[in-house]
């Protein structure tokens, strides 16, 4: 049972404050949370901070335990973070990349345990046939799947994925999402996923958190959280929230918002 609470979190990227005093209510276990926001809103910085590899002020609790006091091994066992960039195209084969991801930080695991987990991960993500291909011979999408395998192999309870589907085609996007859902339901875990595709997030996430202008603009189930107002505030566009034939919300964009309409000139975070 994994829960996450975030209180008064402030994040800096270099000299600039990216997010100021952001809080998220307790997110229940088993949820898939879409992190949305325009470029430079602090999505990646937020995920890095939650992964424990970036600086922040404020408090983060995972399962009621403060992130800051957590031991290295506990953190590595609990949290899996997928960076935004793809794995490097080197001569490493996919199998070695995944095995080494496990072995580098878990010397306590037996060879059999590591090999078993790796085998399961390759099957689960449907990339078994790529196991002995060099990373520099794989496509961008295939490398992204290997990167995901490196994270998933340790079976973390809290998955922090930075645009995990950016290089994937539609079929694979949905496939990856299903795999992630299975993993978090197995471990009663939680997944926070930074996404660019708003409609993808609205369609598949249980909650969305929308950031912009240095703060949290909305949080909640997709149908409640997404409104034309927050769309304008976050992305500076005019859009409508429609309902599809299956009752799910989706965003239709109309035009760029006029400068005066959103009243936040100068806060664009490029």
């Amino acid at each position, binding site marked *: 049972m994994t829960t996450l609470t975030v209180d008064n979190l402030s994040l800096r990227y270099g000299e600039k404050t990216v997010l100021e005093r952001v809080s998220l209510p307790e997110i229940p276990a088993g949820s898939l949370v879409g992190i949305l926001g325009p470029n430079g809103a602090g999505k990646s910085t937020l995920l890095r901070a939650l992964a424990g590899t970036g600086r922040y002020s404020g408090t983060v609790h995972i399962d009621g335990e403060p992130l800051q006091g957590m031991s290295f091994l506990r953190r590595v066992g609990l949290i899996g973070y997928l960076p935004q960039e793809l794995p490097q195209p*080197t001569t490493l084969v996919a199998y070695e990349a995944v095995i*080494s991801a496990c072995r580098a930080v878990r010397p306590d695991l037996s060879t059999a345990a590591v090999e078993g987990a790796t085998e399961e991960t390759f099957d689960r993500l449907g990339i078994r046939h790529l196991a002995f291909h060099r990373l520099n011979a794989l496509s961008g999408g*295939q490398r992204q799947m290997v990167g995901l395998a490196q994270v998933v192999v340790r079976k973390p309870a809290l998955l922090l994925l930075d645009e995990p589907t950016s290089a994937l085609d539609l079929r694979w996007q949905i*496939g990856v999402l299903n795999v992630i859902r299975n993993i978090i339901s197995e471990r009663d875990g939680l997944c926070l996923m930074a996404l660019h595709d708003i409609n993808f997030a609205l369609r598949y996430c249980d909650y969305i958190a929308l950031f912009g202008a240095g703060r949290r603009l909305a949080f909640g189930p997709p149908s409640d959280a997404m409104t034309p107002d927050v769309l304008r505030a976050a992305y500076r566009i005019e859009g409508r929230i429609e309902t599809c034939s299956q009752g799910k919300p989706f965003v239709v964009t109309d035009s760029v918002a006029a400068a005066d309409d959103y009243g936040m000139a100068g806060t664009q975070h490029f």
Partner: protein
Amino acid sequence: MSALAEPGASAAPQHRESLATGYRRFVFRRVLWLTVLTILLVASVLCNIANGPAGLDIGTVITGIFDPATLPIAERIIIWDVRLPYALMAAIVGACLGLAGAEMQTVLNNSLASPSTLGVMYAATLGASLAIVFDLAGPLGIPENYIVPVCAFVGAVASILLIQTLSRAYGATVDTVVLFGIAMVFALQALISLIQFVADSDSLQQIVFWTMGSLARATWEKLAIITAVFAICLPLSIRQVWKMTALRGGESYAISFGVSVERLRLIVLLRVSVLTAVAVAFTGVIGFIGLVGPHIARLAFGEDHRFYLPGSALAGAFILSGASIASKSIVPGILIPDGIVTALIGIPLFLGLLLAQKRRPQ
């Protein structure tokens, strides 16, 4: 992406080989290559012992090594006091530089990095030049034949400590470390030129000869020192093979798994520098081994560091061993400095490897 199967839908599990078994079969070829390279290295060392002004055949060499008492005294002295330390020195110095180069390329994430990237070799040259020009043997009370290696080593260690201190202070990212390294290289080159400028012609000749790199100064004692350092460094490298392998997947990934990359980088740089310093202190500047060795290893063994690191050390040892045979054979009776021969053999080999890699279908 059309070549991919469907994610989540695991294929029928019956009668298929596990990935672990498949991988063992996959790496069998690498183990085979490691064995082949080891045999080649042993052969080249034997060849190196046999080669020289007084020609010996391989049979005599082998008898001389395993049963020296049966040989005439002259041959025994040639083998044990002259050829054997020289041949083994070539192998061990090559192994040190090959290992150092491989680790350097990994932690700096750059296949053009080598042990000389951060100026360790230039610092050693500066130390050696100071010893030669100011004739430090007397004042420091160090034996004549050790003063140059000792000063070269001290110079190299000083440069290592300076880079480590600066990198700790400013963050040991690839960019910072390389920046300091390049600055160091230029500064050291200028200082070496300055010393050469003030040196008398005799010292100048000695400095120039030192920078050409030569194994001719090999003795059992020096060999033992280099071997000891290599024997200490190799297990330490092996302890970190998984972290370095993980780093090849990308720095942000390694950090995300929990590898403290900057710490790893500083530790590896320290090890690389010590290996390089001790190797070149006794031989003078020998380039290219640390650049070519890792490239050969990468082609033959991939970048799983369990194979890549020993592979690069073996490749380095083999190349320098081969180069030292060539340095004796090109002009019979004259020992061309090994640094020159290595570079002349190394450059075409290096270019050939790079171009072959480029041509290989992705």
